[in-house]
Every structure is written in C-alpha cells, then in structure tokens.
C-alpha cells in the first residue's frame, strides 16, 4: 500500500518537473529571440526611425509608413472581422441550425481555419481588388485579412459561448426574457473574456501576415500615410522583409529595429485587449 503511494508521489514529481521544464524551455526560446533582436536592433531605434520614410540610406530610413499602415489595417480588420465573427458564432451556438446545413457550415468554418494564408491573398485579389474594384487599398487588405482570421474568431467564440452554463439561460427564460435579451444580456457578457482571448490571437496573427498582402499588392515603398480606406498602404512586416533581404548588411540591423517596433505595436494592442478582458470578467461573477 505504502509502496504504491510512494510511486504515485514519484510520478507526480516527475510530471511536475517535465511540465516546468517544457514551459521554461518555450519561455527561454522567446527570451533568446527577444534578446538577440534587441541587441542587433536597438542602436537603430530613434525618433527619426519612427518618423522617417523609407530610404536607400540605412541611417535615413524610417518606418513611419509601415507603422501607420499597420495601425490602419488592423483597426479596419478588427471593425470588419469582430462583429461578423462574434455574431456568426452566436448564431451558430444560440440559434442552432439543425440537420445537414448546420453540419455543413460547421465543417466549412473549421476547414477555413486551416487554409494557407496565400490562398486568401489570391481570393482577395480576385474578389476585392479586381471584381469589386477596391484596387490595392486598405479596404481590400483589411477584407482579405478579415476572411483569414474570421474562422479563428468564430471557432474560439463558439467555445466561449458553449462554456456558458445553461442554468443562466434557463434562469433568464424563466423570468420571461426573450431570446435577444438572453443572448445579449447574459450569454455574451459572460462569454466575453473567452471571446476576447480568441480575438487577440486572431488579430496578432493578422498583424504579422505578409503573404496575402503581397498578393493583393501592398506596397514596399510609400512616402505618405493613408488618409482614407481607399488609399494604398504598406505594413511593418513587409518593410522588415524588404530590409532583411537587401544586400547591404546595415539594413539587416534596421530590420531588427523594425521587428522591435512591430513587437511593441502588437504588445500594446494585446495589452489593451487584456485590459478590456479583465474589466469584462470582473463585472461578471458566477
């Protein structure tokens, strides 16, 4: 009996050590990466770097066009993809479609989440750029990225909505609430923290995408910031990619500087989302 107890404890210890080790390992990789990037790129971080246009001289080149392009693009993408994604998830979960159609939609959404991003680029080029005539504008780019991340938002939102206990719904119904009141007054606020986690992951993916944007014709050199959704644009990852592949080695350091900026933009975006999430989860206590 005691022997069994001991071996159980041993297994417990080994398991714990393994979990700790693997977590530590993944964090270590991130730290090494950040350290390396900061060491190579920090010298090029300056106010000029943030406010200059691209240039053939490494010391004059800046990333202003990329920063503004990324901010515009991600904001529009969020405006398009979050409402559509969350409402689709609500529809699929709360207003369940029975039978084959529901199954077909479900399988389709799950499959869409696994389609390579370049395919979305081709789709965006044919539909938004050419057919709708949006040209190589922010709108085309944002719509393409929205298609790309919508499945992720839908799948994660559905999981969050599923996790809301039925007792809440039944309680509301028992008090005479309509479906709309149940969904928007009770289910959505409770599911919100989970939904936001999915949204953060999805937008973080969108912010680093290059392939579909190259296909739809996002630019590499541009010396003005967008003024409307119909303007051309470039984004940080494209600028970084261009610098990293240039012959002059100094541009490679600039690329590292660009990566730091990209990380900063992404982290501040995530920070805002985490703040919203925390406020949302404080309000709702089960």
């Amino acid at each position, binding site marked *: 009996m005691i022997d069994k107890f001991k071996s159980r404890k041993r297994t417990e210890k080994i398991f714990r050590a393994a979990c700790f080790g693997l977590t530590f390992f993944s964090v270590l990789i991130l730290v090494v990466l950040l350290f390396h990037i900061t060491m190579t790129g920090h010298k090029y971080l300056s106010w000029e770097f943030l406010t200059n246009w*691209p240039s*053939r001289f490494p010391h004059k080149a800046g990333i202003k066009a990329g920063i503004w392009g990324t901010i515009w693009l991600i904001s529009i993408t969020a405006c398009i993809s979050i409402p559509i994604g969350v409402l689709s998830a609500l529809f699929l979960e709360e207003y369940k479609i029975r039978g084959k159609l529901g199954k077909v939609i479900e399988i389709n959404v799950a499959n869409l989440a696994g389609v390579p991003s370049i395919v979305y680029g081709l789709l965006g080029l044919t539909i938004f750029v050419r057919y709708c005539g949006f040209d190589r504008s922010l709108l085309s780019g944002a719509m393409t990225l929205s298609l790309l991340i919508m499945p992720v938002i839908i799948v994660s939102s559905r999981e969050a909505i599923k996790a809301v206990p039925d007792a809440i719904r039944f309680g509301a119904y028992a008090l005479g609430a309509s479906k709309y009141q149940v969904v928007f007054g009770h289910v959505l606020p409770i599911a919100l923290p989970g939904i936001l986690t999915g949204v953060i992951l999805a937008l973080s993916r969108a912010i680093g995408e290059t392939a579909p944007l*190259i296909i739809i014709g*996002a630019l*590499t*050199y541009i*010396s003005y910031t967008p003024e409307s959704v119909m303007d051309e644009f470039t984004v940080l990852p494209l600028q970084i990619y*261009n610098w990293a592949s*240039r*012959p002059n080695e100094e541009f490679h350091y600039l690329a590292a500087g660009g990566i730091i900026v990209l990380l900063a933009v992404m982290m501040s975006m995530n920070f805002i989302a985490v703040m919203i999430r925390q406020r949302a989860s404080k309000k709702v206590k089960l």
Partner: protein
Amino acid sequence: MKNVFLIISLMLAVDSFAASKMKGKVSIDGSSTVFPITEAVAEEFRAEYPRVRVNIGVSGTGGGFKKFTTGEIDINNASRSIKDKEIEKAKENKIDYAIIAVAYDGITVVINNKNTWAKNMTKNDLRRLWDAGSKIKTWKQLNPAWPDRKIKLYGPGTDSGTFDYFTKAINGKSGKCRFDFMKSEDDNVLVSGVAGDIDAIGFFGYAYYKENKTKLQAVAIDGVAPDMKTINNGNYKPLSRPIFIYVNKASYKRAEVKAFVDFYINKASSLVSEVGYVPLTDELYKEQFKKF
C-alpha cells in the same frame, strides 16, 4: 543682360514652383532586383515633387507584368524582358509600352574565400556543372587538377529573373538546369551558404557580391572578373544583363508619370551606382527618351 538673368531666374522659379505644385500618383510594381534603384529615384523625386505620390510594390517581375498588362500600374520594374504570353495579354488589353533600360547587372558566380583552385572558370566549365542532367559531383570531375571533393551548389529560386537569365546564358535555354542545388529566394541565404562552405559555388546579382566582398570571391569567367567596368563595357560575358522599367505609354501622357520617368532617366547614372548596380553610358540614357 540683367533682364536676361531676371527672366531666367524667374523661369526657373516658375518651373520649380510648378514642380512643387504638381499632384497625382505613380503606381509601380515588379522585380526586387530593380527595386533599390526605383526606390532611390522615388526618394530623390519626392524632394522636388513633394505632392506627387509615388508607390512601389515588390511582387516580382512576373507578378508585376500581370498587373502591368492589365493596366493596373503605370510602371513595371523588370529584371528580364517581357515574355510572349505577357505581350499577348498586353495586346488584348490594348496596353502600349516603352522599354527603358536603366542599368546593368552582372550575375556573379561566387566561391568560398578559401577556395584556391576555381578562381577562373570557362563558360564551358559552368555549363558542364549546371546543365540539365549534369553528372558532375566533384571538383575533380570538372578539372583533373582540382580536389576530389563534393561540390555544393547554391542558386536563386527558379521563379527569379536571375535564374532565368543565368540558365539562358549558360545552358542555352531559360529554365534548363540541374535542380539538385540549394535554392533560396533570399540572396542573403546564398551569401552565408557559400561563405560557410569551402566547396560551395553559387550565383546571384552583382549588388550582393559587392556588399559581401570580404566574405566571398567572384569567379572570373574566361579570364574576366566582374566589376563596374567589365560589366558596363560588356567584357564580362555572358552574364552581364540590362535591367529595365516598362512604362505604359498611356500613363506617360499624364504629367506626373512623365515627370517621374524623365527624372528617372536623368538621374539614373548617379543613383544606379550608389545602390550597387552599373550605369549605362550617358548616350545610352539619352537614347531612352526616344522610345516614347
């Protein structure tokens, strides 16, 4: 006399005033090889025409031609000539264009710094090494005096204009090549690959060699090493090639596109060498104006 000066200076003032007032948009796309030149021109152009919006994408020569032949862009940066299929497409869409040569590039064959034997190769050596179905595995098979070790081959991706040109010049047909070599779309990967392996040989654009002269050495072909002079006067054979911009003639009628293209040709000579390419002669640049 004073009046003449006054008039001239007034004219100049009006001219630069007109330049700073000019508005409009010039859309450019195409090759990553030509991009640094066009970027440099756009940067200088902005100083004189601050209100003209010039934008440049990099979707490759082929990707650029797709947009150029449908009239979506005004100018395509091209590291190779337009292909028959693309010409047909342009005709279909009634796109008339001018081909402007802007610089030379010398595709450079590079070897490791420690390589002491292959500093000079003949065109035939290269062909025997790179041709489709080549059986050459070691340096010794190429030349009995060379070491009996395995050759490691590096080259750009098969979609690139550089690969097209190299295979055409060396093997006689664009795309005809052995395929058991390390490929990368990113030339910097090729640079570090060859720099780190004594038995490596690879090829890419001259600009990448020029920036990495300390890490690599260039192979002289039939006794001629690539440099600014030999590429410019054509002695570096057969791997020096012109690179182009294709200009839509209908777009050229727009003031801002005309201003940009004229500026490009006028300033190319100095800007081209600044970014690591070889300029044409001044007469040749002047001739480009006749193409419109």
